[in-house]
């Protein structure tokens, strides 16, 4: 029989080893494992990460993982969440449990320091979207080159007008890119000033016509988000801009846990 792996959900301060009234991935029972004044929420699994070709199965597992981490966050208040599918393997004659204990012993000071740092803090997601058509009409009002280009197009034969139209599109794209860049820098700066820590994430595709121009994860004290809220409200009031503000989440993006 192959030695088992340990799937780990998160680590928190604590000293009780006990089964939890929750089911983990694939219905396996969870329990807390303790060492050095820390607890890890774990379940047994095969000595490899969970894998499935079926997107739905994968998505469901991810949901279960997030649910358990959320519940742990409520229960233990401050946790270091592990990313989905982190499995401690048995190695070199050591069981997974022994390896986890060894890791906790080695890292306990650092883990405790991190837990202290994360106390009362949560992760918040901020996304700023814009409608390029709205932004463009404002740009156009003040852009002589665009107005000139539009005028030129109107008075030319069809083939010439077509190419001038393409040229105009290119010009407009450049103006929008410059505007997006400038807005990103401004918003980022304003948001940065109200939060403890910030990570830039990739922007995602939105349903047209909207485009995402800023996507960040922020770490901030749960009791001190008024300043951030005020900044985001102001941004949302600018014509053509929308803000998506999500959270509080467990601070996934702000831990580099998992050895």
């Amino acid at each position, binding site marked *: 029989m192959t030695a088992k792996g340990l799937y780990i959900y998160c680590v928190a301060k604590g000293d009780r080893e006990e089964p939890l009234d929750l089911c983990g991935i694939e219905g396996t029972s969870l329990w807390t494992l303790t060492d050095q004044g820390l607890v890890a929420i774990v379940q047994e699994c095969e000595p490899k990460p969970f894998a499935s070709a079926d997107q739905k199965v994968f998505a469901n597992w991810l949901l279960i993982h997030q649910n358990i981490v959320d519940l742990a966050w409520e229960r233990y208040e401050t946790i270091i969440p592990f990313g989905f599918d982190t499995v401690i393997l048995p190695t070199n004659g050591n069981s997974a449990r022994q390896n986890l204990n060894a890791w906790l012993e080695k890292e306990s000071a650092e883990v405790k320091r991190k837990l202290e740092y994360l106390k009362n803090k949560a992760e918040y997601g901020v996304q700023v979207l814009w409608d390029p058509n709205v932004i463009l009409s404002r740009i156009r009002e003040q852009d002589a080159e665009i107005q000139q280009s539009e005028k030129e197009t109107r008075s030319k*034969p*069809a*083939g*010439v*007008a*077509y*190419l001038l139209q*393409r*040229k105009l599109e*290119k010009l407009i794209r450049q103006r929008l890119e410059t505007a997006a860049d400038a807005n990103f820098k401004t918003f980022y700066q304003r948001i940065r000033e109200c939060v403890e820590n910030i990570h830039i994430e*990739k922007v995602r*595709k939105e349903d047209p016509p909207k485009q995402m121009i800023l996507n960040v994860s922020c770490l901030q004290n749960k009791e001190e988000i008024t300043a951030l809220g005020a900044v985001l409200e102001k941004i949302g009031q600018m014509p053509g801009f929308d803000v998506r503000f999500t959270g509080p989440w467990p601070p996934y993006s702000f831990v580099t846990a998992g050895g």
Partner: protein
Amino acid sequence: MKIEIDDKDLKHGLLGLVLAIIEVIRDTLRIQSLKRMEGGHLTEDQIDRLGLALMELDKVIETIKEEQGVSEAVRSVRDGLDDLVDGMIGKLVDPH
């Protein structure tokens, strides 16, 4: 690295792929034509002919897409290609 060709029929999917590639070539032709026009060495007549030829190409592409019902498939392939290129550039800029 998955290009999603969103439909049931292989022939349909293949046509979508082919048209997507034709559109990319068409876009390149547009860029080149603009460069020539901006280069200042073409007469207005030549520019007009260039523009009209590209307009014709646009019409043909749109007609085929509509008649064969592959507009969605083409969009899907192009989005997939965009993501692919985006990903590659991302890796080159920052290997981590």
